């Protein structure tokens, strides 16, 4: 189980990385922590002619408190969130999430940017940053742009990143002290990818609520109808039928058992965010 041959470059700057990736077209693959890419290379499931190692680009490591938000460079490892080594914008949600996926050795090398850019439908950071209303900073041949997190994923392993574009970092607006969050995840085993995962961030004082379902066989689903009902004061426990209807309306074609499971995690996340 060894990778097919590929060439390797290690750009020192963002500009160089963008140039190399753009020149390589689809056959060049960016490498961050490699915790998803290298297994796929080993299994020969992800053909790559060239691996572009981003890990030496300092600009991708920057972590900044920007007053109303925190900017996390794409190469920030999961363990930095787990260990509380980076400023928190999320009232503890990001740390809570980071403690609960994969395994320590993977969290040491895996990065938030790599995980988001891969867009694995069962992974954790995407629904998290969508729930937090994050802005994704992207650099490419045409310069920098910002993509709202919920617009970033187009489908399983399919993102809005264009050719040569690199995810530079994640800017997470700081939650108000009045904001609460809930998190509910089903895995068959500790550390495995989620079977279902719901994250709710609710700030009734500011009339803001966002509930996101991950592990949804595609892009995470933002439950707008549920958010509105919660802000109107509904109890999540009473909303199972509405949630189910909203999921059915998403046209993801969930199996009946999956629909039950997703409904459960959504109810529980929402309950924890409003209680």
């Amino acid at each position: 189980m060894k990778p097919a041959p590929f060439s390797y470059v290690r750009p020192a700057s963002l500009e160089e990385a963008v140039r190399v990736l753009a020149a390589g077209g689809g056959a060049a693959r960016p490498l961050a922590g490699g915790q998803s890419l290298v297994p796929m290379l080993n299994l020969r499931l992800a053909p790559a002619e060239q691996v572009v190692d981003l890990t030496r680009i300092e600009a991708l490591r920057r972590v900044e408190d920007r007053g109303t938000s925190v900017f996390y460079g794409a190469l920030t490892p999961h363990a930095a969130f787990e260990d509380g080594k980076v400023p928190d914008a999320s009232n503890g949600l990001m740390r809570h999430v980071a403690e609960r996926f994969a395994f320590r050795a993977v969290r040491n090398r895996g990065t938030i940017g790599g995980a988001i850019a891969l867009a694995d439908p069962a992974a954790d950071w995407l629904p998290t940053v969508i729930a937090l209303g994050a802005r994704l900073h992207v650099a490419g041949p045409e310069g920098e742009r910002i993509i709202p997190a919920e617009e970033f994923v187009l489908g399983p392993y399919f993102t809005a990143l264009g050719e040569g574009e690199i995810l530079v970092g994640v800017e997470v607006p700081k939650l108000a002290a009045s904001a609460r969050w809930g998190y509910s995840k089903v895995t068959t085993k500790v550390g495995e990818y989620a079977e279902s995962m719901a994250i709710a961030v609710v700030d009734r004082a500011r009339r803001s609520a966002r509930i996101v379902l991950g592990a949804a066989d595609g892009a995470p689903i933002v439950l707008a109808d549920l958010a509105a009902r919660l802000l109107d004061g509904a109890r999540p426990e009473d909303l199972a039928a509405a949630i189910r209807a909203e999921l059915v309306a998403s046209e993801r074609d969930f199996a009946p058992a999956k629909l039950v499971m997703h409904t459960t995690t959504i109810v529980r996340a929402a309950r924890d965010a409003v209680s």
Partner: protein
Amino acid sequence: MKVPVSLTVNGERVAAEIEPRTHLGDFLRDHLRLTATHLGCEHGVCGACTVLVNGEPVRACITLAVSIDGAEVKTLEGLQGEALMETLKAAFHEKHGLQCGFCTPGMLISAWDLLKRRRDLDERAVRVAMSGNLCRCTGYQGIVRSIMAAAEKVGAAAPSTIKEPLR
């Protein structure tokens, strides 16, 4: 096709020309003949290949050797004689923390890191923290008991613990 890589492995500087596709596990085993690092899945799940890179445990099988150029790597061989590791090994022997021995080097490295990092370990915490290391022989009971015994010895166990079963 080949690229240069230079690492400090178990305190020794090594430099080699390797194919970029060479993962750290193969580099350690094939190029340096350090065979304590075992390959159990080569897709980053079983944990048998866990080694320390710059002091932190990583999966050698899903780390390209070239991508950690310049790093300091420690394998089980390099921790021979190290005090905490010897405490762990003694505990694994005393509490029957191994059977076939194949997962053992990865278990020891992950446990070593855990005992370095944490001071609040109870049985549940050990189980959760070790969930990235698979064993097919022991059912984990001997492993968990070994790690708890070592944790108590080095002061990494939660004061309130222990000897309470998971239930």
